[in-house]
């Protein structure tokens, strides 16, 4: 989860500690459509995986990201 949070914080330029499962474009101003795509790219780079186009469109909040990462075999549970 730490790595995921740090990517989110880095791209959205928000405090890592403020990130919850419910964090979403609704409550983070910097989470615009462009940053949403940057997030995908950064996760792909960091975990060496590939999201497909349906997965990209399905991301609505942090929880969704974690689910997709899990599907790709990335450990997402809190330590």
């Amino acid at each position, binding site marked *: 989860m730490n790595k995921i949070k740090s990517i989110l914080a880095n791209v959205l330029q928000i405090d890592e500690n403020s990130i919850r499962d419910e964090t979403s474009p609704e409550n983070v101003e910097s989470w615009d459509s462009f940053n949403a795509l940057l997030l995908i*790219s950064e996760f792909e780079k960091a975990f060496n995986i590939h999201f497909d186009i349906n997965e990209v469109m399905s991301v609505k909040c942090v929880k969704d990201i974690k689910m997709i990462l899990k599907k790709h075999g990335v450990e997402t549970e809190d330590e």
Partner: protein
Amino acid sequence: MTENEYIKKIKRAKEELILNDSLVNYLKLYKGLQDINLNVEEKKIKIAVIGDSTLDGVKEVLNVKCRILGLYPLFYIAPYGQYAQVILNENSALYEFKPDITIVWINVDTVFSENFYLPYRLSSKNRKKLVEDCFKNITLLLKKISEGTDSKVILHNFQMPISSSMGILENKQEYGLVESINNLNNKLIKNYQTDNQVFIFDFEGFTSRYGKENVTDLKLRFSADMRLKPDFIPKLCDEYLGYIKPIKSLNKKCLVLDLDNTLWGGVVGEDGFEGIKLGPKSPGNAFVEFQKVILSLYERGIILAINSKNNPDDALKVIKEHPYMVLKEKHFAAIKINWNDKASNMAEIANELNINLDSLVFIDDDRTNRALVREMLPQVLTLEIPDDPALYAQTLQKLNDFNILQLTEEDIKRGEMYAQQRKRTEFQKISLDLKDFLKNLNLKVTLSKADKFNIPRISQLTQKTNQFNMTTKRYLEEDITKFSENKNSLIFSAQVEDRFGDYGLTGAVIIRKDKETWVIDTFLLSCRVLGKEVEKAILAFVIEQARKDGVKRLVGEFISTKKNTPAKDFYKDNKFKLANKVNEKEEWVFNMDTKHDYPDYIKINLRV
């Protein structure tokens, strides 16, 4: 934020980006650099970007890159999908913005629309017509920009498709899709080959270099119309910087090279003449190739110099006698082979060549030397060169800091001329008396009327000459052409050579004639020919011509600037009398009865 804090921040940003040049990192740095406005006119650059796809990130990356160069960038980014409206509407925000550089990035599928996917519905004749129509439309758009602004215009060429419905028969089709796009690209190149406002950026070459499948993420393309993966945006912006640097005169002129493990493998002091790695066998061949790339830069006019910690005899023996040295002694304008520190040598090289430290690029395999020069002389561009010599040549080839917007004869010969200068200085050291030295130089000055061959150079001289320039009036090519066509003006250039070689076109004079009065509007000489009394010879010619024309009053103008002190006493020393002075502007008058001879050791050649 104070200016000092800002400079520190920029320095840190630079270091961070060497380690990680991802788009996200640029976006992060971007925010921290915006609170200070370096509102200095000469540092300002207005950049317009117009495209048909998503341009997000370009502004932020270019902003950071420009600020690292010491510039203050301002931006206009056309709204998504509105490139044509923005360009065609003369009242659009683009024209209000008055850009210095306008980047136009339109993709081939936009230009060809449906025909890009279904080209073979058209007959070959209609495909040919399609290319002609596209060419017309694009050149029309560019004409609008170049007429509506003073901006340089950078047009992306069109990317070739990576597959065809025709498969292996694609190039058996008359005027097939690939051939059509190639033709469109070539027509654009030809059309703008001699245009100094419009430049074609080889976007096709750019995507090929990194791999077309690799630079695009198709899901980002379909979900957001992003044509490049985020981390290729900084690489694209580097290409744009290749244009911005020469526009802002940030281009480099001189390449300073280390010797051991840079021009050859090994250390000559330890491995000996025969032990160093340089030749057809690996790894010596990597150094041979690197030297060839350097030689090609020299032949394009880049000045070369050596800065090496070495025993001079050992190192010079390699340069003079090694059978596989591509670079010879005659190619170097300054040679510093000693045990001094590299930063002091660097400063001496700049001083000796009379060029600014910020025109130097330094290549050294040794990290400590690089760090020292970076710390002591941050103005010098110290290249971050990979440890592997196999990558040296490619690293140098990628450098865009030698870019210039226009190449004149003089630019091409610069490297050679500076190298000849070294020989001259050595000669001067052995001849004791200046008069004797000048006499033995066999100076020859050729004076020529302005014509289409020398007009670009005359304009360039007025733009660039600061020291021996009586009035520092800057003229565009168009202005020089007007002078040359006007009966009431006399304009000529001076080319100087001596026994060591040709200095090229290094002087220019513009005279405004008003009945019996001649006013010397411009009188300038490049600093590399100063101290030889060439200016006295040129003035003698002006006076002679004035006499022939029955001129009663010959007036020399002088406008004082921070940089033109070498020219300050020129008219006074040549028996002109100060007649008028208003602010920085002086008028000196020559009594036409006064004697003024040509210096007897200068041969004059007339083509006026």
